[in-house]
Structure formats: C-alpha cells, structure tokens
C-alpha cells in the first residue's frame, strides 16, 4: 500500500467534477434552455478546478516551483495535464466573470476539460502499475466527471433539466458501479501484480465505502427521481474514497521484485 496521496485525490476528483459540470452545461444547452444560474455555476466550476489545483500543490516537494511543470509538453502527460487544467481554469474563470459561458468559450472549456481528464488518465496509467497501465484510469475519471458533473449541475439547473440530469447521474452511477465492481475481479485473473492489486482493492475499506456510497445514491434516486441537494456531497465523498483507494491500494511492480510476476 502506497500513500493515499490526498492532494492528488482532491485534485483529480475536484478537477473532474469541474469538467463534468461543463459537460453537463453543454448537454443541457442541447437538450433545453432553462433558466439556470450561469454565473454561480461557472464560479463553482472555476472554484472546484482552482481548489483542485491548489490542493495538487501540496503534493509537491517544492510547490513554489510548480510552474516549471510545464517544461516537458513534448513527452510528459503530467506537463500536458498541468497545461490543460490551467487553460480550463482560465476559461472557467473568464466565463464566471462574463456571467456565463457559451459558444467558443464553452467549447474551449469542454476541449480543455476533456484534455485534462485524458491527460490525468494517461498520467496515472504508468508502466509501474500493470493494473492501471491501460485505459482504466481514463474510464474511471470520465465516470467521475459525469457523476459529479451531473450531481453538481443539479444545483443550478432549472426544473426542466432535472429529470435529464437525474437520468445521466443514474446511468453514470450504474456504469461506475459495474466498472468498479468488475475491474478488481477481472484483475484477480490477471498477472501477479494485477491479482495483488485486485485483492488489495477488495480488501480496502475505502473501496467498499465508495461502492456503498454509489449504491446508496442509486437507492436515493430510485425513491426520489430527482437529485436532492445534499446528494452530490454524498457522491463526492464516495468518489474521494474511491480515488483514495485507487492511489493507495493499487500495487506497484517494484514491491514484488524477486518474486514471480
């Protein structure tokens, strides 16, 4: 078990929530025009991403030198992640200042946001974690983005959009639950490190908290049909727990040197 990497947990989940909100904004835009509170919504988007980036600095040994992380765009997905997240934050802040984002600004934010999620997905899929050295991190992160995006968007969307958001929230939760339950079980039949990762996830209280929270959210929606105001907070806690398990429990190849792989 590695460190929980709390700053990275916060950064990835909060940034994905922010990206998800922008995606939901676009979806709502296509679906119907409702009287949403665009300024506050964009303020929350910018705030989540800003908070995430601020949290990520605590992960660095030398936070004041963080700006240098842009130096390796040619190769390092982490540099690209920093760039994309920075652009997204700038666009979101601009949109918040403008009182809302539409058109090119919205599309710019969507592109930067998806790039951020993709870059995160690539950054956290290194060869040292065979269980994650694939598309899984990107899939996990996209699901988080949609769940949290739909959840937080419900705070700002008009009545008309609520059933749509609830459907998206539900669909994403079901997908997330299935993926999250299936993945460690599939790992069990994989290589040694994958197997160990699967066992570590399945033995992790954090993992089961995230599963339980997702199931509980689904239960609430089953009864409620719309998203209660407090539910996104619960979902956020579940996502944070799941992400903490993602960082803490996935097994690094170096831990097994000298033993069969």
């Amino acid at each position, binding site marked *: 078990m590695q460190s929980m990497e709390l700053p990275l947990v916060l950064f990835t989940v909060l940034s994905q929530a922010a990206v998800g909100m922008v995606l939901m904004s676009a979806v709502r835009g296509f679906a119907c025009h409702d009287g949403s509170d665009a300024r506050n919504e964009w303020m929350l988007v910018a705030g989540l991403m800003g908070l995430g980036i601020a949290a990520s600095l605590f992960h660095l040994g030398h936070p004041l030198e963080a700006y240098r992380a842009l130096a390796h765009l040619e190769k390092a997905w982490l540099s690209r992640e920093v760039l994309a997240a920075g652009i997204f934050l700038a666009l979101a802040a601009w949109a918040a200042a403008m009182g809302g984002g539409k058109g090119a600004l919205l599309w710019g934010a969507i592109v930067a946001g998806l790039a951020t999620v993709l870059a995160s997905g690539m950054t956290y899929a290194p060869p040292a974690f065979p269980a994650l050295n694939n598309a899984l991190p990107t899939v996990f992160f996209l699901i988080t983005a949609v769940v949290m995006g739909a959840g937080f968007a419900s705070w700002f969307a008009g009545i008309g959009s609520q059933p749509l958001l609830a459907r998206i929230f539900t669909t994403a939760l079901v997908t997330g639950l299935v993926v999250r339950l299936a993945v460690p079980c599939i790992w069990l039949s994989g290589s040694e490190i994958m197997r160990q990762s699967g066992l570590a996830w399945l033995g992790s209280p954090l993992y089961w908290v995230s599963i339980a929270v997702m199931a509980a959210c689904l239960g609430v929606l089953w009864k409620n049909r719309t998203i209660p105001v407090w539910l996104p907070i619960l979902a956020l806690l579940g996502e944070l727990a799941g992400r903490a398990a993602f960082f803490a429990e996935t097994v690094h190849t170096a*831990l097994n040197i000298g033993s069969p792989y």
Partner: protein
Amino acid sequence: MKKHYAFLVDSEKCIGCFTCAMACRNYYHQVEGVIWRQVYPLDEAIYPHRERAFFSLACNHCENPACLNVCPVVAYTKREEDGVVVHHQEKCIGCGNCIRSCPYGAPVYNPVEKRAEKCSFCHERLDASLLPACVQSCPTGALTLVDLATLEPGNEVQFPAGFPKAEKVNPSTRFIMPKVPTLVRR
C-alpha cells in the same frame, strides 16, 4: 548500436553480501530510508531456497526511461555517450511522478531535500575512467559494468523471473540466473 552502459547481475556469482548496497551508501551518504541499490532475495518459487539467491538492483538506465518520459520538469536526461540516465536533482520539484512510474522503483523520494533521487551510475566516476562504487566493491565479480553494444551474446537474460517485464521502457540490466547445488541431507 550506440554505446550503452549497463549493469550485468550474475546471480550465480552473487553471494547476497550487500557489499554493493553499502558501497553505494558509503559513497553518497543517502539520507535515512533512501536506497539507490538494493539486494533483493529471490522468492522460493524462483530459487528453491529462501534468501539464498539475489538480484542486486539499482537504476536500470533504460533505453526508454519511464522516469525521463514522465518528468514534467525535464529533470532527467539520458547521456548520449553512454546511455546513463541522470537525474538532475536541482531541477526536480518533488512531484513523485517518476517514483510512481518507474516499474523498478529506482527513483525514490528524499524526505529531506523533498526531491526524488536515484542511482547515477556514478557517472562522475565513469568520466574519470573509474568503475561505479558498487561495481568496484563486488567481491565476487557478480556485479559488472557492460556495454550493451559490445556485449557478446551469452546466457544473459533481460527479463528473468522476479524482475518486472516492462518491455516498453527496455531496461538495460542483464542477468545470469543462479544454479542449485546437489543437496545431501539427513
């Protein structure tokens, strides 16, 4: 092929004496908990006797180093003249991405400097035509310096059991596997 220095780990000659590991510490005085070269015992599934065969491992100075590829501040370079992967600690911001990414656990976090560090292949000694501290220290010649460009093909392997098979990063270390004696027991 270009000149590419590598460690040849001959586990048949290795006696697991940890001399190489301590020679490294003697030379660089790493802070507590920071290990550049470690001696890993092989599991009984690989060598049938517990803690009787070993891999002495440090940085593998890979052809396509994960550390270099993921470092956001370009703190890693690969020397053109001999393939040595150098970590320039003064550039490092301590993001830990290399530590997370290297399949071999070569870069480690220095909690005092708050930056990563790893085996340098003693490049400052190589530049003075000296052997790395660990290689010089080995009492049985189990740990040697080879040039992959001129290494005669023999019974060396790149991915023995017990060593992560990260083909994409293409680690330069080569191994010779240990033998088992005839055992006569009561």
